[in-house]
């Protein structure tokens, strides 16, 4: 077993060597521009792009013509939301999203608010799920778009996407989902899930960074999007720019592998995740799972180790790559807004660790991480005045803290 151990697969994934193998010829040998229509170099590149388009479409149950290539999910989210807001401005100006969306969605919505859009940010239930009744009440005759992520990047909670899509369809409102954490990990089908627009990225599914896609439905309903970048009119006019052929080949191959191996991989990763969870729960008291276990990605675990601060915990497991909701580990010095949106309180967010298990993790690694965490948490609790007080029977919520 080699250290450091990578358990941060919601941030990014190691590229699958099979993906790299597929990409390699397209850097030096088949380097053509897919838009060059009059020679062999261009044709070969275009064929490779067409194949990738098909591989992506197959994974999400659609047709190749509905795939628009982008530089990644941040661009896809921007293009989807701004593109719809602009295209359908005459129809309305109201967008519904959720408080736990990725910043690429939230900040895009904030920008649109400055430009005259109205945005509803739905709160979440304690288990991290959308309240469908609240969503229903949020629609107005000005609503043009609902944007709710498929699965959350911190707590792995999977939203009731098909139901949300159905509610949108019944009201003639477009439905966009940021699918990056779910695609290739759990079955995603744009037709049974009633999705109109979906953001995709390669690097979360063992593909390269810097390439992604946007699924844009062509019929029932036919979705139109205003391009956000002017240029050569590539990708049906929705996204100009010379196609990143090697990256696109990588995204396609990553999708094909995920499609083939998903049933076995889901079972294996769920097994590892449950093994980690069970070991930690057996070895430690006062641990708390953040978000629904039932509606959750099989490879995600988000746990709070009460009375221990997240950054000090990460220091103790410095040969394990995970992330924490603690303020001290974030650039903004604010604890995780996702965990806060669940109504958990800052103290639980400060004590949280996100584990993202991936294709290349082994049982041996999981056992090592569990044992190490149990050891470090126990040590830090020896140091924790809060743990001592709780053990003395003091209710921490009744303590008057000298906040600073």
């Amino acid at each position: 077993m080699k250290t450091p151990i990578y358990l941060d697969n919601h941030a990014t994934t190691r590229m699958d060597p099979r993906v790299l193998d597929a990409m390699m010829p397209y850097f030096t040998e088949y380097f053509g521009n897919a838009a060059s229509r009059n020679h062999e170099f261009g044709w070969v590149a275009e064929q490779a792009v067409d194949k990738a388009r098909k591989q992506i479409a197959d994974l999400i149950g659609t047709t190749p013509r509905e795939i628009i290539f982008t530089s990644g999910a941040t661009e896809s989210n921007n293009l989807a939301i701004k593109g719809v807001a602009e295209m359908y401005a005459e129809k309305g100006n109201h967008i519904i999203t959720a408080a736990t969306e990725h910043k690429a969605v939230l900040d895009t919505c904030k920008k649109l608010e400055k430009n005259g859009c109205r945005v509803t940010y739905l709160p979440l239930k304690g288990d991290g799920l959308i309240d469908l009744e609240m969503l229903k009440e949020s629609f107005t005759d000005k609503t043009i778009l609902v944007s709710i992520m498929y699965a959350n990047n911190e707590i792995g909670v999977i939203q009731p996407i098909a139901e949300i899509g159905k509610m949108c369809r019944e009201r003639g409102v477009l439905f966009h989902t940021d699918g990056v954490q779910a695609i290739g990990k759990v079955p995603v089908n744009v037709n049974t899930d009633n999705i109109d627009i979906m953001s995709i990225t390669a690097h979360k599914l063992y593909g390269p960074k810097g390439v992604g896609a946007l699924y844009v439905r062509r019929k029932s309903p036919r979705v139109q999007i205003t391009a956000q970048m002017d240029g050569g009119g590539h990708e049906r006019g929705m996204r100009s720019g010379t196609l990143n052929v090697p990256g696109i080949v990588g995204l396609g191959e990553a999708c094909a592998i995920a499609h083939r191996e998903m049933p076995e991989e889901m079972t294996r990763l769920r097994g590892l995740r449950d093994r980690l969870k069970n070991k930690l729960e057996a070895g430690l008291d006062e641990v708390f799972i953040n978000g629904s276990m039932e509606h959750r990605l099989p490879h995600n675990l988000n746990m709070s180790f009460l009375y221990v601060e997240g950054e000090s915990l990460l220091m103790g497991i410095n040969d394990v790559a995970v992330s924490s909701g603690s303020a001290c580990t974030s650039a903004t010095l604010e604890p995780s807004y996702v965990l806060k949106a669940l109504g958990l309180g800052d103290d639980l967010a400060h004590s949280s660790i996100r584990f993202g298990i991936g294709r290349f993790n082994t049982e041996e690694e999981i056992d090592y991480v569990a044992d190490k965490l149990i050891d470090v948490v126990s040590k830090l609790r020896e140091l924790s005045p809060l743990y001592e007080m709780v053990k003395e029977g003091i209710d921490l919520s009744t303590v008057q803290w000298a906040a600073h």
Partner: protein
Amino acid sequence: MAYSDKVLDHYNNPRNVGSLDKSSASVGTGMVGAPECGDVMKLQIRVNEENGIIEDAKFKTFGCGSAIASSSLATEWLKGKTVDEALQIKNTDIVNELSLPPVKIHCSVLAEDAIKAAISDYRNKQGSKAPVAVEQTVA
């Protein structure tokens, strides 16, 4: 994030972890911070009532590695000092000793507050005429 060797040393081998009898007249207890802020420090001193020298100091800290190191260092420095000398310890001394980066300065402030709070508690117990003012700051 890179930690200085001294922070790592205190984190891996914290000095003077534990608790003193907080009901004892010779023990002063300071508890500062709040769980929502991500750090709580408990710092205790036991003072020789004859000569005013701090004979023992203990801490427990919920917080990041720098908070743990700041309070661990504080207990080291407190031992052997008189109460008056202890009041001279400044947060900047802790920053310099541990090479804390700007985002971690609040950890050193918390440690200084904890020292003052512990001494204030001790003096209140002793019925001193001149209790130390503890800065009341609100987050």
